[in-house]
């Protein structure tokens, strides 16, 4: 009797505080792209103190994120692959960008250091088509006269799950290689003719780190935090650019944001210093929310991120949107929700 009442009292004491704590913070849930996951988590942490909103973001991949927001199982969806105007209309969704990120190619070749290897878009397309299979292929050697490339098999790594990162990567490869566009095409989940798949940006980074001769594509933030070896890529102007802040900003400043759904195409921009693979990432918000308070909280959270989050984004090597775009997004919110 004594022990039983003690146990009852202890379990009550342990569970009751949980009820109290939940009542305080306003909660919003989101799911989608792994591309912006690092910055969303940072923003969520920083915004919690300032706005009192608790954000629960799950990086399950753009495809799953689009699915979930269509089914309204989360408050907002996140995707790197923008939806077109027709899809937004049928899904009753508002789409707006939050930040831009850049995609880099990472390699694991013994003896090659950071930003040493020079590659071009068509070469990358051929690697992922399985046409170039060894690192000392004449085409790669011709671009890199100063480097000794070993006779190592190329092991391409790609995203196995439905991913906006894949969408951006194949968009770039399709833009520079008609054969790639015909054989593989563009989508969040495509059929790669060569290589092995891994889950998430983390999986691709892990695979490249473990396999000698591997090449993969990840968001720049992952390459930096995991200290992976990146490469130079030749841009549209014909210059080999390194994946650094200067080249990202050069590409971002050339984008045209007046397209429907803010789906600006920043791939393979002209400009002497532009990095060829930069892409914005988007949020999908229902225009007919069932819970107006939660929808308002989502907008408050991202409004805070636009105003105060740019420095955090730059620290993580993302590219903040220009202020004009922030204001355009705020205007779109006012138009759809009146607030």
């Amino acid at each position, binding site marked *: 009797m004594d022990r039983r009442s003690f146990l009852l009292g202890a379990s009550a004491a342990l569970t009751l505080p949980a009820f109290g704590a939940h009542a305080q913070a306003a909660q919003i849930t989101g799911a989608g792209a792994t591309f912006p996951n690092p910055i969303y988590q940072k923003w969520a942490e920083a915004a919690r103190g300032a706005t009192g909103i608790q954000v629960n973001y799950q990086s399950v*991949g753009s495809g799953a994120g689009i699915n979930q927001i269509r089914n309204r199982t989360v408050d907002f969806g996140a995707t790197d692959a923008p939806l077109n105007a027709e899809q937004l209309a049928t899904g009753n969704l508002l789409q707006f960008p939050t930040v831009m990120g850049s995609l880099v190619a990472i390699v694991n070749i013994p003896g090659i250091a950071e930003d040493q290897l020079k590659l071009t878009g068509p070469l990358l397309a051929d690697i992922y088509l399985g046409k170039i299979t060894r690192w000392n292929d004449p085409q790669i050697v011709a671009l890199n006269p100063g480097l000794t490339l070993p006779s190592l098999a190329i092991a391409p790594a790609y995203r*196995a799950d439905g991913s906006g990162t894949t969408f951006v990567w194949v968009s770039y490869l399709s833009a520079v290689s008609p054969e790639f566009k015909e054989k593989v095409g563009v989508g969040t989940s495509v059929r790669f003719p060569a290589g092995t798949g891994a889950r998430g940006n983390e999986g691709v980074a892990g695979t490249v780190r*473990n396999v000698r001769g591997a090449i993969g594509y990840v968001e720049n933030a992952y390459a930096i935090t995991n200290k992976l070896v990146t490469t130079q890529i030749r841009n549209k102007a014909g210059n080999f650019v390194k994946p650094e802040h200067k080249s990202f900003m050069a590409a971002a400043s050339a984008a045209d944001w007046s397209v429907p759904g803010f789906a600006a195409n920043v791939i393979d921009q002209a400009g002497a210093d532009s990095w060829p693979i930069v892409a914005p990432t988007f949020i999908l918000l229902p225009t007919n929310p069932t819970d107006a308070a939660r929808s308002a909280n989502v907008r408050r959270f991202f409004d805070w991120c636009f105003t105060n989050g740019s420095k955090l984004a730059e620290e993580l090597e993302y590219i903040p949107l220009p202020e004009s775009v922030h204001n355009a997004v705020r205007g779109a919110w006012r138009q759809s929700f009146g607030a």
Partner: protein
Amino acid sequence: MVNATASAHSAPKSARRPSSNLGDRIFALLCQTAGVFVLILLGALIIELFIAGLPAFRAFGVAFVTSTDWDPVREAFGAGVSIYGTIVTAVLAILLAVPLAFGVAFFLTELAPPWARRPLGTAIELLAAVPSIIYGMWGFFVIAPAFAQNIQPWIIENIGELPLIGFLFQGAPFGTGLFTAAFILAIMILPFIAATMRDVFEQVPPVFKESAYGLGATKWEVMKGVVLPYTRISVVGGIMLGLGRALGETMAVTFVIGNANRISTSLFGPGNTIASLVALEFGESEIGSLKLASLLALGFILFLLSFVVLATSRYLLRSRLKV
């Protein structure tokens, strides 16, 4: 004595109400309901999978089962690659696990000192208690790098060049792939097969073994000539059980199989099993899409495969258990 107790119990009962077995009847009814519920659930699952997968069968016909296409952009799907991967990894896992399990069972029943048998047996069974996602993570973070850096390069360079079997071991040393998945699966199904073998080995009547020893047979001859023939059916049943487990294993395989939607002739190449393909692509398939129907049709095919394997194993084990 018993009758007196029974009449002492029944007397107060009959004094209260006429029907005394209402509690029994309710309990029996609940048990019957539970049994019927399980059957209905199984049937509903099969029917639901089949109906949901019907659009895929209608769109691609019987060729769905053999087609090696899996192209989400062109909306062309086929089960060939995943069925190939499922069967290859499962068969390879059995080939790796059965000799090992046999060795374990042999050691536990014949060679181990009596004080070691219980703890070793428990240790083997604890392997079965490890969650499968832990196996997957261990495979991805420990085994795959070890294979990629040490084992696979050596095999690819040396055995990959041999004439007849070389094609099985070619390609880039990814570390992940069909072979790694089969290796992890072998470790996962080892405890099931070893436990079954050990149990049936112990059931062999000692008099058979002792008469063989009396005739001068060695331990191996006793095992080969007496124990294995006696337990053959149950051993095969245990292997089928392990095979059934290997066919459906999801998380451990998804991490290490390399997730490629094409058939690879090399064992080191990446591939897909039905379970891993469904796990990866289910979340992003929209409701009503052809991709979702294809995934559910794949689930139906896997269900058929597992059902056949498990039914065979139950049939083989039942004839032994009844004796």
